């Protein structure tokens, strides 16, 4: 009986949170179009979410590209078609791995920090202070993060894809001696605009999802059980935010792939 009860209440709680999260999106969409418009907070958030993630993205991009180069080379060599190595690497990076890996990296590096920052601001009364200063916290705190997420994640995804293609190039061409022409031209011939566009659409949606979930988790910490736990509560919601946004990325990746 207890188990059923707790299952039910946690289901209700997660439904409530989902509702709140989408409501937050609507509120922000409404707030963004209202003046005043301030650019610097958005720049600051792009700096934090995007620019500061560049290193991680480059390193993981190169690594993933090299792994793909290695694996595809081994497989394709058995069929004697190593000349499609370039297109194999490029297509899997552009359509799948680029957007997904970038989004997961952003969750780990920036998403957790966003959630913790907002959570701490809430429990240390900074959000209340903003409200008392007649400054709208949705617009002042959440909107720049959301916009920066939507801008930064696609840009990071492009960087990731480019360095991954060259990671694959390094393994295929430099290490295994696939001809440079067949790697690059094969890739150029195989990839069409719709592949790049798919990756771009995915990364836009991931960018929005990740920042939205992490913002909502931290920003609404006071409405959950963790809200009364202080610093410990912040660590709980941050963990939640990372897990939920990672799953949301993977699941929506499947959905977008199925629809588009």
């Amino acid at each position, binding site marked *: 009986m207890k188990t059923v009860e707790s299952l039910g209440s946690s289901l209700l709680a997660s439904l409530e949170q989902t509702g709140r999260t989408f409501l937050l999106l609507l509120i922000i969409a409404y707030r963004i179009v209202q003046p005043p418009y301030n650019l610097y907070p958005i720049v600051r958030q792009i700096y934090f979410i995007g620019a500061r993630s560049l290193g991680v993205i480059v390193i993981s991009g190169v690594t993933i590209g090299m792994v793909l180069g290695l694996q595809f080379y081994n497989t394709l060599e058995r069929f004697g078609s190593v000349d499609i190595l370039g297109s194999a690497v490029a297509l899997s990076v*552009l359509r799948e791995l680029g957007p997904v890996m970038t989004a997961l990296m952003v969750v780990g590096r920036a998403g957790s920090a966003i959630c913790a920052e907002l959570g701490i601001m809430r429990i240390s009364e900074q959000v209340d202070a903003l409200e008392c200063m007649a400054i709208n916290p949705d617009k002042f705190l959440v909107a720049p993060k959301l916009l920066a997420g939507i801008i930064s994640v696609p840009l990071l995804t492009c960087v990731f894809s480019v360095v991954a293609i060259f990671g694959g190039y390094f393994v295929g061409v430099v290490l295994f001696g696939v001809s440079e022409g067949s790697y690059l031209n094969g890739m150029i011939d195989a990839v069409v605009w719709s592949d790049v566009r798919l990756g771009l659409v995915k990364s836009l949606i991931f960018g929005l999802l990740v920042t939205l979930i992490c913002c909502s988790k931290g920003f609404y910490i006071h409405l959950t059980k963790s809200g009364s736990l202080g610093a410990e509560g912040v660590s709980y919601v941050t963990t939640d935010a990372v897990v939920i946004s990672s799953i949301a990325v993977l699941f929506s990746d499947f959905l977008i792939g199925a629809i588009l």
Partner: protein
Amino acid sequence: MNKINVQLITGIFVVIGILSFSYLAITVAGASFVEQPGYNLSARFTSVSGLRPGAVVEGAGVRIGTVSSIEFDPESFEAIVELRINDGVLVQEDAIAAIRTQGIIGEKYIKIVPGGFEELLTDGMQIYETESAISLEELVSRYIFQTEG
């Protein structure tokens, strides 16, 4: 971290991102959305199986254009392929457009075999002589048929 530094680094990041995007869109995606100088030809095939928009058009093994679109004509039950041929490449009226495969599981491409007429095709015209995609099954069955005969 002062304001100017943040703005500078963010600016650099955005530039790197946009450059990466341009590389992907223009070079890797083969500029399939940027009109390259050239002219359009069409060709009808009974089968284009495996050919995709963006595929290469070759003449004598050299890239001379790309496939810009593939459409189905319900009346004749044929595929209409639009080709974008680079400027300066001359295609005779009796040239043959043939769909070929690179390697066994490689990409499909269109090969232009030059003709002997002096009249040249211009923008919007059609290549009448075509050879459709040869599927592996057809090849095998034809081979069996030949040995029997």
